[in-house]
């Protein structure tokens, strides 16, 4: 801070952190930033040592209001349990021209369906996804893992200990969701209605395929995901 003696306002610091961040920032993280800055830098930063959650939340609201009032094509959105600075979608067409991204690549319907099943049913095994879709999903799962939209969350206690899949932070960011619970009809879709132990459903047959190759890939991507998340948290 070379601007001699100029002490920035709380909202200015919050705005700067949000601008510089590579991932949504939570209120808790911002509070932590103020405390750590006070410890490590001292000086004027020490003045913010006592900043709490309410003040940070209020500062975010100020930034939000100021951006809206200024009308400069930027806004604050609540995404993936945090806040992010993003451009106004109304200005999207021009940004797309600038970035030369005229036809944004989107996920295919089968990929979106698979994601929807995972989002609502997580943690969920491949066999369970296939039982709903009625068709194999290995390739799609592999792609979704590569895109870090899903991750392996663990292993089921079922025979063969199949992998369990769940959605990631990136999933929330990609769709601009704050929480999984923001998806419509979560309560209805989350639990399997009328637990019929699929005796001859085609899910049972598909489940017998050894998930080895998918698992190997899954493990790799999961590690990457963890790594990516580690960066976010750190």
């Amino acid at each position, binding site marked *: 801070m070379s601007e001699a003696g100029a002490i920035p306002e709380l909202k200015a610091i919050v705005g700067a952190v949000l601008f510089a961040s590579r991932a949504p920032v939570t209120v808790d993280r911002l509070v932590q930033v103020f405390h750590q800055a006070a410890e490590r830098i001292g000086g004027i930063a020490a003045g913010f040592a006592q900043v709490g959650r309410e003040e940070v939340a209020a500062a975010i609201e100020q930034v939000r209001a100021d951006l809206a009032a200024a009308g400069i094509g930027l806004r604050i959105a609540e995404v993936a349990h945090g806040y*992010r600075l993003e451009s106004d979608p109304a200005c999207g067409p021009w940004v797309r021209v600038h970035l030369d991204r005229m036809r944004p690549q989107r996920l295919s319907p089968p990929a*979106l369906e698979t994601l929807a*099943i995972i989002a609502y049913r997580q943690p969920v095994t491949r066999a369970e996804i296939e039982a709903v879709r*009625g068709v194999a999903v290995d390739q799609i799962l592999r*792609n979704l893992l590569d*895109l870090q939209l899903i991750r392996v969350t663990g292993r089921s206690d079922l025979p063969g200990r199949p992998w369990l899949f769940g959605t990631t932070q990136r999933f929330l960011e990609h769709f601009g969701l704050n929480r999984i619970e923001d998806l419509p009809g979560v309560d209805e879709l989350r639990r399997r209605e009328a637990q019929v132990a699929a005796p001859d459903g*085609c899910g049972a047959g598909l489940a017998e395929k050894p998930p080895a190759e998918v698992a190997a890939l899954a493990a790799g991507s999961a590690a990457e995901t963890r790594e990516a998340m580690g960066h976010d948290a750190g």
Partner: protein
Amino acid sequence: MPLAERDYQVRLEVFEGPLDLLLYLIRREELNIYDIPIERITAQYLDYLDMMQMLDLSIAGEFLVMAATLMMIKSRMLLPPEKRAATVEDEEEADPRWDLVRRLVEYKKFKDAARFLEQLERRQSDVFTRHEVVEPGAEVPVGPPTLADVSIFDLLGAFQAALKRIGAHEDLREIFAERFTVGEKIDELLERLREQGEVSVTRLFERMRSRHEIVVTFLAMLELIRLQQIEAVQRGTFGEIVIRPTADAGVSVGAASDE
């Protein structure tokens, strides 16, 4: 009709499953999902299966499993209820269709949820951040990149209509006339689209007089869609399907297919 002299292997993987096909047929025929006329739907399902096999599309084995399931349900429907209930404990399952209906209804809910995700994604495509964004780039194709607007079943429907029109009136002279190759049809199709901008699929097959030519043309169309040279769009639900060059088309695939 086996396509014996296959010059060009069209590898369009069908990512949609048998449940998609059933939902498509139910929607097209405006049927009540809770009271499916099983005989009719089975016949139509098998028609589609025949077409996909004739075109040698790489369909999943699940399609055959579903065909067997449908035929089993059909045969059980022929039994008087007292007899068929003997094999099932649950009173509710006395209707052999019940399990299938339950699966269809459940799957439909997730398809609707997927449509919601699609809307969110569309909205987000106009939002930019400094964050690392998920970009399904060229290296990571997620499913079929191309049939997003029209399902494979819609295309097959148009194909079926064209074959039906030919029906028994297939011109015998045409049968023995010159054979077409998928490669040639690809060039022809690209040429026509260059001149006319877009062509409705119905018009595309209009003047063809042999099944062979229709099959080969259809395969050429699928291949061009797969290569992202053309795209198919539908005007409204079950409306006319139109094919047109994609924005980033222009690479000549014709040259490659001449070999």
